[in-house]
């Protein structure tokens, strides 16, 4: 067993961290968030240049061909810097789906553009009646000519506002909650009949509601056009593992910030970190952080587990641990900072907000705990 990075991975980590240190300080991030789209195209281009956007794209398509460890390295750094650019939907979720399940045409069209930073994509799978159940799909796809037409509504599409194309789950057969008969389709964001309502999220992210009225679409791939649920679930699991790692990056940074603050801030003539109660609270935060880190590693290392049930169990378990740890660290950091932690002028609150949103994304800790409790033992052999 080995928890070390290889030399190459360490190099990558150093590169990402150096890059973010230079381009993504608190004020720089603030400027990015203040842009009309809520993030910075310039930074996105720089992210492409250092290989971030193409990190998970196969080398055959000009990408870095990184795997789970490379993703972990990137996401921890991005979480630590609270990066708001659309890395997850474009460079992880859609890149993964296209590389793994896309037709050659689609792969050749989009993957190089993901690598060079010119393509922005989003995954539209949630519907309002059951946003946490990817098998509950009312949106329909009907064959039409060479392709399909889609009808329906999608909700909470991360970075769906700026995406040039969307990967959309839609039903080709069966009833609304059937596991079979859900296909994955590629839709041009400018297609006629597609409307989107853009909005910001609490953590300075962006999202959109999408409505589809007779929107022309292509099958993402031949197999997943008919039965794409397993591919979609694997992608959601990958996304959950990624935000778990991102959360660990954020938690570690937040914890360090809090410990520094306790050492620096004086009250009653002493650094408040001299008070044993606050030291122990910081120690408990550290324990929560390290346990969360262990589970995030486990989640990421399970993303290529061939047994879908085992994969999902490991990742959902991590989501529970990270959700709880993230809320605990966010709340405790705010309390230990006092007033300054309540303001937008200081970083801790931004970490708190991001961690809160990570818990809410794809189902919070209680949601996954409830589901896991129905699925038998989590104990390994």
């Amino acid at each position, binding site marked *: 067993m080995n928890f070390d990075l290889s030399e190459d991975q360490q190099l990558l980590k150093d590169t990402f961290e150096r890059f973010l240190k230079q381009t993504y300080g608190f004020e720089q991030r603030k400027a990015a968030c203040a842009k009309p789209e809520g993030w910075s195209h310039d930074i996105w281009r720089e992210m492409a240049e250092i290989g971030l956007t193409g990190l998970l794209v196969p080398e055959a398509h000009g990408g870095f061909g990184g795997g789970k460890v490379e993703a972990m390295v990137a996401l921890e750094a991005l979480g630590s810097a609270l990066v708001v650019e659309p890395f997850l939907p474009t460079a992880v979720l859609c890149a993964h789906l296209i590389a793994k399940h896309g037709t050659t045409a689609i792969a050749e069209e989009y993957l190089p553009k993901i690598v060079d930073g010119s393509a922005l994509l989003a995954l539209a799978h*949630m519907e*309002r*009646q*059951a*946003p*946490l159940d990817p098998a509950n799909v009312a949106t329909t796809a009907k064959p039409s000519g060479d392709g399909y037409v889609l009808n329906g509504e999608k*909700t*909470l599409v991360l970075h769906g506002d700026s995406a040039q194309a969307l990967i959309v789950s839609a039903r080709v057969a069966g009833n609304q909650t059937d596991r079979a008969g859900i296909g994955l389709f590629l839709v041009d964001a400018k297609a006629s009949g597609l409307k989107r*309502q853009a*909005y*910001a*999220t*609490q*953590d300075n*992210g962006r*999202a959109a*509601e999408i409505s589809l009225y007779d929107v022309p679409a292509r099958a993402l791939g031949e197999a997943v056009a008919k039965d794409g649920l397993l591919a979609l679930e694997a992608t959601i699991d990958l996304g959950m593992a990624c935000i778990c790692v991102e959360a660990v990056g954020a938690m570690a940074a937040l914890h360090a910030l809090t410990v520094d603050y306790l050492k620096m801030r*004086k*009250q*009653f*003539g002493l650094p408040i970190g001299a*008070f044993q*109660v*606050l030291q122990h609270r910081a120690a408990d935060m550290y324990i929560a952080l390290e346990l969360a880190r262990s589970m995030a590693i486990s989640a990421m290392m399970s993303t290529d587990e061939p047994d879908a049930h085992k994969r999902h169990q490991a990742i959902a378990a991590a989501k529970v641990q990270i959700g709880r740890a993230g809320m605990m660290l966010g*709340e405790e950091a*705010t*309390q230990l900072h*006092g*007033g300054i*932690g*309540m*303001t*937008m*002028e200081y970083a801790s*609150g*931004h970490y*708190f*907000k991001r961690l*809160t*949103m990570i818990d*809410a*994304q*794809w*189902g*919070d800790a*209680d*949601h996954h705990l*409830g589901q896991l409790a129905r699925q038998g033992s989590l104990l390994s052999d």
Partner: protein
Amino acid sequence: MDMQLTADEVAFRKEVRSFIRSALPTQIRDKVAAGGYGSRDEMIEWTRILHAKGWSVPHWPVQWGGTGWSPMQLAIFDDEIQLANAPQPLAFGVNMLGPVLYTFGNEAQKARFLPRIANLDDWWCQGFSEPGAGSDLASLKTSARLEGNAYIVNGQKTWTTLAQYAEWIFCLVRTDPESLQPGRKKQEGISFLLIDMKTKGITVRPIQTIDGGVEVNEVFFDDVRVPVENLVGQENRGWDYAKFLLGNERNGIARTGATKEKLRRIRQLAQNGYEGGPPRAHDRRFMEKLTAAEIELRALEITQWRVLARVAKNPKGKPDPASSILKIKGSQMQQCATELLLEMAGPYAMVRKSSASDAHNQPPVGPEWAAVTAPQYFNYRKVSIYGGSNEIQRNIIAKAILGF
């Protein structure tokens, strides 16, 4: 021993409830019920409705507009305000400054300021906290030096709630700079000043908080002239008045009525699913959490009555240290309610309405009530920080009750 209200108290509650519910403007009620606050104008409107009824400063001496109600009646009134989703009268004037003035102020100050507080003619804010002095309030540095018939004030206050609306600020200032020297007690050089916010040299800078709102401010004083008649009580005795004020602040801090109303709303919202989804009430785990919160709130409410019954027997006594329990548990319960709402919103908690105009142009994303759940959750983290953080309250319990 008797846990029932007397017949008179029941009748009183009924009277108060009926007045508040009929007199409270609907749009204010709906705003508060949804987790928001009344605007400046709405606060003034509501205070004047209460004032017309004679209820805007019920706990004050009758001479200054008070009601002569018993402590239990005052508690019932507070509770009914909260249960009705009515705004609480603005605390800075009504609960903080008013009692200081009628207890320590001179006749001119009382006559000048108290009636204007009761009618919310003056919006007051509180200038206590400073960047370097949070829980350690007495280490404040804002200075006031006497020059002729005025104090010249220099320094900075922070976390000044709603200073952007305020006509006046009451401040703790250091009138004896020597009192910060080693060997001296830093509490002994502090005075209590009333300052007109329109005075030259005052700058207010809003601080955006993590809920996205602007509730607090920094207030800068640059050679601000304050007439000497605006000194309350004696020079360098301001700490005594501040302690008196902070002791009063702990009354009603549990806000059980407001939390009760929130839990009630949660139970009601849980009955309906969103867009054909299942109602939250089908989620047993969630309902058990809600029930556990109700139980704890009930325990807190009774504890509050017990403290109140002790206080009622000795109304002039010092603040009961058990009120630290009310502060700690009250803040935890207020936060718990916002956590349940956040959980209920699920992924829709992520949505942020960036401005009022967005809200007009666009349909809501997710259930209508969900949009404010995250801001409320973030905003309520303050309640375990302000008014003496929960850590400070535990220190008080350890020292004043347990004798450590």
